[in-house]
């Protein structure tokens, strides 16, 4: 009985209502034209495919970001939430979030996510209990990183 409660709790931990909502109606889904940066992400293990598009201005601010592709609930919701959070942020802020998100996804079970930094992204903290699903959540972040890096070093503000 004890174990049963534990299991119910864990599954709900991953598939929170917000995640189901973003799965069914992903935000910022589609192609961004024109865009300054784009990249494809691919998880060969599960076949998840992702394409992210970014419009980064001369001040290194992510003016717009969209994504398209096919993936599971976790990768779709993660990408959807990410696009909402990144809009209006600087590339430096992205880098900080990238680190924080990665830490959250691979943290110890008992660690609470830093909601001050992560904001609504903290809803994905449950993936750490599902080792085979961590890559689903981080794929979009790696894809944005490679989009930014592949285009060469973006102009620095300072």
């Amino acid at each position, binding site marked *: 009985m004890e*174990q*049963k409660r*534990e*299991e119910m709790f*864990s*599954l709900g931990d*991953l*598939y929170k209502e917000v995640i*189901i909502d973003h*799965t*069914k109606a992903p935000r910022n889904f589609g192609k961004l034209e024109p865009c300054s940066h784009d990249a494809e992400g691919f998880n060969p*293990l*599960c*076949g*998840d*495919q992702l394409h992210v598009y970014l419009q980064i201005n001369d001040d290194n601010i992510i003016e717009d970001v969209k994504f398209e592709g*096919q*993936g*599971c*609930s*976790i990768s*779709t919701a993660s990408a959807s939430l990410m696009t909402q959070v990144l809009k209006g942020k600087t590339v430096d802020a992205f880098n900080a979030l990238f680190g924080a998100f990665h830490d959250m996804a691979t943290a110890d079970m008992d660690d609470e996510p830093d909601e001050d930094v992560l904001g609504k992204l903290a809803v994905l903290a449950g993936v750490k209990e*599902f080792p*085979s*699903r961590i890559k*689903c959540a981080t794929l979009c972040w790696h894809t944005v990183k490679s989009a930014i890096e592949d285009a060469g070093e973006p102009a620095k503000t300072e």
Partner: protein
Amino acid sequence: MNIDNIRNDFPTLHQEVFGHPLVYLDNAATTQKPQCVIDKIKHYYEKDNSNIHRGVHSLSERATKDYEAARKTIRDFFNAKSTKEVIFTRGTTESINLVASSWGGANIGKGDEILITHMEHHSNIVPWQMLCERTGAVLKVIPMNEAGELDLTAYAELLNERTKLVGIVHMSNALGTINPIAEMIEQAHKVGAKVLIDGAQAAAHIATDLQALDIDFYATSAHKMYGPTGVGVLIAKEELLNAMPPYQGGGDMILMVTFEKTQYNELPHKFEAGTPNIAGVIGFGEALKYISNIGFEAIEKREKELLAYATKKAQSFEGLRQIGTAKHKACVLSFVLDGVHPHDLGTILDREGVAIRAGHHCAMPVMQFYKVPATARASFSIYNTEAEVDALFAALEKARDMFA
């Protein structure tokens, strides 16, 4: 055939996962191991552990005897002509790579054609692509229809005097289709092509008589037949093996070595360089004895019954689309469910104790054909029950409700 007795032979089955009895439906990835196989491997490491073919001491003699006895068991099981034709490898993948590298290297040239089917596992695609890149040969593909059955008319048209090898999966791991290899082999031989059969998925479920089918190269793995991982076999016609150069050089595959020249060992040792997976081979032999004791007649009848039960449930499950509906199929229920990605299904089902596979099943061209990124796959074995199929569908309902 008493399912309860069979289930009792498999210790792994008797455990709980997240508070639910384990329902293991990932048999196409690997089967569980019966106690007799586990005991046999344990016995080797506890009593007979030593190297084979070289020691004069008692342990080595015992280990060599058991290792070679397994070769005889495998010869009998597949009705190969002689134990010289039975080469132990790391598994199906290595067996196919051995053929592509050794036989392919010696026999395939520019403009030659290699024919494979649309439903091959990556292990029967990539080694041939690599060979084609090296030699300038051309890889051609036998198409299939929506049900996941090969187009035999197209096959007949693709065969020609340039076709040097036809690679066919006996049973598709992604679809469950059983291919009509007997007539396909006959047709290939008419144009002088050799045939390689990938038996990894079929070998535990359908009787395969290599001589009756006139198979040139046959590859399979122990771990999909209730045996250990990391060991498999290539069974090939003796005259082909004799004419082939060695695949790897090293110990055990030689008769005489000087710095000027090496004389290679006789078959089958010519293709078994280095210390092999001795415990694995011995366990492999024991696994085949286990299958033989149950008998293919009983196995095929039972597995057909269970697949029919599962298929019926699948057909009436709202939003479920079966991937692979061939007339001749076995043991595999591959599907997608509206609104729930296969990966989420895999995770949700796991929490209900139900183990399935989600992904492309190492058969990406099959996924491309059906225009799906992945499928969920439940695959059955002799120890699965109708109650487990019910548990699968109960868990699927739960998953569907979560995303409703």
